[in-house]
Each structure stands twice: as structure tokens, then as C-alpha cells.
């Protein structure tokens, strides 16, 4: 308790700062748990049915709905590997997503850094970016295809990933994070002789690890789940990304229910893994938020 009285020092905050939050402004723990459990239950309910059907392939329209899975078996998961060239599609998706993530992290951070400066036309750029957000993809299908064709990137990994190389939402997440870094810190770094690039790499990015983590998570998911654009731009069946395999599980002539849900669950897993990995940065952020102070 006495540590609270001291002026915060970087070292003590790094070690203890995280723990002190609860006592200062959180609700009683049991209340938090109850609320979160309730919310978790509501959120998991539909997901439970997806999971259950992926193991049983049962008809969900049977009445009354059964909570317990009937004859669960993992064969639908095995089926998905054979219905479509799963490994090949997985590889393609990974390549495209890696391209997208790296480009995103780099380009978005650069753009956000530029937006922390004051320059003529800044508000115009911000307005432009916000406006570009308001253009849904469905309205750009044909021109995007024509443009990609002109660049000569049809049916290529780069062509699939290119429209997702930068995302405006993530630029603003970075910007919010960069803006929160006190200028005094940056000034100090400049005085120490660091170049612009080093300032970004050594000061701003490390202090914005939660923004980087968010960017990685979001750009991965948007690229991984991207369905319509790869569908339009990929011609070679072996270049297809994972979501495009979906049609095989939506057959009119055969019952592919279990396999469909198994497929959806398998496509979901990498996104969750990335989230779990990147989540740690949200904790780092907790302590580095203190360092910002």
C-alpha cells in the first residue's frame, strides 16, 4: 500500500503497476466473474451448436433441440481434408495472409506516424481516409478486378492480398496509440540523436504493442476470411484460398451438414490462435501504459 504513495517510478510500475489497478477502481471480483460468465454463456450458445453439429452432423431442425450431442465422431473433420484440397488451400491462405499482415503492420504504422505530425492538408487526409471507409467492397468488385487486371496481378497471391494491404481502421488505432505517447519522450529521443525511423522503431512501436497486436489480429482475420475478392480474382483452382472451399460443403444434392460446420470450425482455429498469441500484448500494454506516464 505504501508503494502507492511514492511518485511512480518506471521500475516499480513495471513490477507492481499491473497489480494495483484492481484495488483502485474495479468492481468486486465476484461481481465481475458473474457478469462475465453470464455474458460468456450468451455468446457461446450459438457457437456451441456450431461445434456440436460439426461432431454429429445432426439435423438442427429436429424438435426438441437436444443439448447433448448424439453419436459424436470426428470424421467430419477428416472428411474436410478430402472433400477439398485442404492443405493446398491452407497454404495459399497462409501466404496471402502473411503478405497482408506484414504490409498492414508496416504501411499502417507509417501512415499513422505521418498523421501524428502537423502538416498542411492533414485534416483533408483524415477526411479522405474516413470517407474511404464508407465504400463497401461489394460496390467495388468490378472496378477492382479491372484495375488488378491492368496492373497484371490477376490470379496471383499479390493480387489477392493487395486490396487488404492497408486498412484505415488500423491506421486510426495506431494513431490513437501514437498520440498517447507524450511528446517529451519523443523529444528526448531526438535529442539523444535517434533518427525518425529509429524513433518509430525503438520508441513508438514498443509503446504501442497493443496497437500492433490489434493490427495483426484484425488484418489476419480480414485477409483469412476474405471470400468475395479471392473468388473474383483467382482463376486457377490450385490458387484458391481456404474460404473458397466453402462451396463444396453447400451441395444441393448431398447432405454435407457436419462437414460444413467442421470446415467452418477449422477455418476459425488459426484466427483464434493468432488472437491468443497477440493477446499477450494487451497485457504488456497495461504496464507500458504506465511507462507512458
Amino acid at each position: 500500500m505504501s508503494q502507492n504513495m511514492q511518485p511512480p517510478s518506471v521500475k516499480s510500475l513495471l513490477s507492481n503497476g499491473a497489480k494495483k489497478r484492481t484495488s483502485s477502481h474495479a468492481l468486486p471480483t465476484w461481481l465481475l466473474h458473474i457478469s462475465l460468465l453470464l455474458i460468456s454463456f450468451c455468446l457461446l450458445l450459438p457457437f456451441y451448436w456450431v461445434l456440436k453439429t460439426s461432431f454429429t452432423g445432426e439435423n438442427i431442425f429436429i424438435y426438441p433441440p437436444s443439448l447433448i450431442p448424439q453419436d459424436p465422431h470426428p470424421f467430419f473433420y477428416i472428411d474436410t481434408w478430402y472433400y477439398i484440397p485442404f492443405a493446398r488451400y491452407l497454404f495459399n491462405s497462409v501466404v496471402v495472409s502473411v503478405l497482408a499482415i506484414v504490409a498492414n503492420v508496416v504501411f499502417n504504422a507509417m501512415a499513422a506516424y505521418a498523421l501524428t505530425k502537423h502538416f498542411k492538408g492533414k485534416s483533408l487526409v483524415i477526411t479522405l481516409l474516413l470517407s474511404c471507409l464508407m465504400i463497401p467492397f461489394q460496390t467495388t468488385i468490378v472496378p477492382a478486378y479491372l484495375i488488378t487486371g491492368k496492373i497484371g496481378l490477376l490470379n496471383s497471391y499479390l493480387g489477392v492480398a493487395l486490396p487488404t494491404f492497408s486498412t484505415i481502421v488500423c491506421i486510426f488505432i495506431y494513431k490513437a496509440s501514437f498520440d498517447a505517447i507524450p511528446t517529451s519522450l519523443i523529444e528526448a529521443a531526438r535529442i539523444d540523436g535517434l533518427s525518425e525511423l529509429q524513433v518509430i522503431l525503438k520508441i513508438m512501436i514498443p509503446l504501442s504493442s497493443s496497437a500492433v497486436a490489434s493490427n495483426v489480429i484484425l488484418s489476419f482475420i480480414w485477409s483469412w476470411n476474405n471470400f468475395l475478392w479471392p473468388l473474383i480474382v483467382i482463376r486457377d483452382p490450385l490458387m484458391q484460398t481456404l474460404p473458397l472451399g466453402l462451396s463444396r460443403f453447400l451441395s444441393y444434392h448431398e447432405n454435407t451438414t457436419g462437414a460444413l460446420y467442421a470446415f467452418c470450425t477449422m477455418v476459425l482455429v488459426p484466427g483464434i490462435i493468432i488472437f491468443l498469441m497477440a493477446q499477450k500484448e494487451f497485457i504488456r500494454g497495461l504496464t507500458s501504459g504506465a511507462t507512458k506516464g
Partner: protein
Amino acid sequence: MQRFFIRFRELVSCLTITIAACSALLWSTSAVAQQKKISFLTWNISDQEELFKEWIAEFKKIRPDVDVEWLDKKGPEFPAYYQTQVIAGTPPDIINTQGGLWLEYAAAGGLVDLTPYLTKDAEVRKRFNSDYLGSWVYESKNYMLPFYISKTLMFYNKTMFKEAGLSGSPQNFEQLMDFSTKMAKGEKTGMLTLNFDWLYWSLFKMNGVELLTADNKKAAFNTPKAVQVLDALIKATNNGGINKVSWTGRWVEPNGAFAAGNVGMLQAHSPAFFFIRGQAPWINSNTLGVAQAPGGWATPNSHGLGISKGSKNPDIAWEFLKMVTSQKWTERLSERRKVLTANIASDKTTLDKMHKQDPLAATVLQTQLEQTDKLTGNWPLANDSRIKEAFYPEIQNAVLGRKTAAEALKDAETKVNRVLGF
């Protein structure tokens, strides 16, 4: 923090290597095209990959100077893909469409008129059931060949019939409504129909209601009889006779509901049988009844094969079409996918075989070839999708309780006439 950055650097190096590798791969695979090339785009039939590979191999023997490419898109994305390709100037040479989509393209000049080809190769025309072949005629021009065909029929849950004390199948519309109401109880409903692509239209046609005047220029459905029919449908929907999913469902829900054994009757086309059977262990010839709808009217929902106007090799495309609709290949398709292809000879052998191997499926498919002179819901309208869009929401308004039958039909008439340019 260090670990995060080491991962980051690793990612960057991985990326560089990946890009380099992929670029190398790409440049090597895009060989200069010396061959002629045709492509064919199919509608949601990716499970038949093997068959198409066989098609391509066979065609290579006929025309070794031609490379064939297969593309497949499922329904909702099909028009987006095809239209993008058309605008980009690279339409697939052959397209397979479902239902009425071909009309939009044919009427706008997007499909090649196949009539001259059919005249030149008269034996091709003779292969097909003429009623089905006629499904793809617009302004006296033939635009497509049958790929595989289907039309609506009635499926009956005999167990539910017995429970409700009903015997025999309904013979007319009134009985249809009566039976459905009798079977409605709790979670069980009497009847379900598919609603996309005019598949529900037999319910009106069996009462003598016409959508348009004989010259297809004006709406003709706002009649007292039609109001009566719609009123009956509203009443049945309200008392559970007709499952509400009939009016808003697409494929999975209606068929899933029937497969669950909760629905007395289902109006759907033949593929539904195979989808349902996979989910319904209760189905056998004692529990499932199969018949034409009362009056014999059925809406076709067939798949056709046509040639894009922008194709650079229409003659080669025609050769390909000739091959895939020949008896050998239609038989193979029928065998693999349990569909009929309107190729008279092949359908006969398919059905003969199936009666021995899978009698219930055979009775289902048999209905597809019966009473093909009573096809309805397939008007040759250039504005087919717009008319659907003008008409069907008003039906929904009526059956789901927002408007009275009279109001709905009146509003629908105004809208349809507007689309027709009246």
C-alpha cells in the same frame, strides 16, 4: 518485448522468401499460350470435379489443340463473377445457369443463339426431351442445351398423414389446404414449399391463375380467384398448415425441416430428395410418398449450358457442348449425381438401372419426366428477376400478415405492370 520483435523479424524474412518463391512460381506457370483455350463455368457442382476432368481429357482427344478450363461458382456469387468477367472482356466460353438467370443474359444479347447450330447438327436436337429443351427458348431462339433438369413435385410424410387420419394424397388445392391444416399440431406443420425461382407458382396455377396475359405484356393475376387462393394461403399460414419458412426460407431450412419429420408435405424439385435423405434416416418407401402436385403443374428449375456472346471460340464451344450432352456423358453424370439430363436415351437407361438399385430415388426421378407439358413458372421474360422482385414481396406481405390478399395483389399488379413498362 524482444520475443515479439524476433518473431516480427522472422516474419519479415519469411515473407521476403515467400514473395520471391511465389513470384518465381507464378512467372514459370504463366507460359505463353499457343493453344486455343475454352473455359466453362458451372453452377455449384464442385463435387463433380472428377467428371469434369474426364470431360476435359476426352475433349483433348477430339481436339488436341484446345485447352479446356473448368470454373465453378456457387449461386449467390455466380452473377457477380460472370458479369465481372464479361465487363473485363474475358467471359467464360460456356456457362451453366440455373433457373431463369439465362433469360437476363439472353435478352440482353449475352448468349449465342444456338438455333443455327441445332439446325446444322439436327441429331443433337433430337437427343432431348423437347419440352425441356424448349425451356431455353426466347423469342423463337434456342439459347441453351439441357445440362440436368428438375421440376417440382410433392413429397409426403406418410407417417404424419396416418397420424392425422388422412389417406391418399390431396387431389386439388382445397384438399391441399385442408390436409395441411389437419396435420398442423405443435411443432408440426402441414406443408412447406420452396419459394425461389417461382417454385411455389403451381399453387396458383393449379387454380387457373395466370401471371401475365398471353402476350406477356400485362399482369393478369389480380382476379377474384387469385384473391381467393391467396386468402386460403394466408389462412393456412396462420394456423400452421403452411410452415412460414415456405415464404422466407431458401434451401437448408425447408429441406431440413422436412427431413426432421415435422412437416407433412413438401413441394420441392428432385435434388431435395437426396439432400433430405441424407439427413432423414426415417425415409423409405413406406414413409415417403412421391407424386406430382395436384393438377400436375410443376415449375422447372433446370440447369442449361450456353455459349457466351463474347466467346472467342464459339464453334469449339459448340463441339464441347455436343460432346458433354451425348449419351455417354449424360449417363455418367446421371449415375454420379442422380439427376436426369433430358437426354431421352440416357434418361431411359438411367431410370431402368435405378429402379433396380434405388427404387425410391427412381420414383422421384420418374416424376421429372412425367407431364412435361404442364410446366409453369417459366415465362420467357427478359425482366424475369425484376418481375419476381415486384411480385413476390407482395405475396410475402399477404401471407405474413401485413396486407390483405386483395391489397397485396393490387399493389403487385401495379408494380409488375410498371416493370413491364405499362
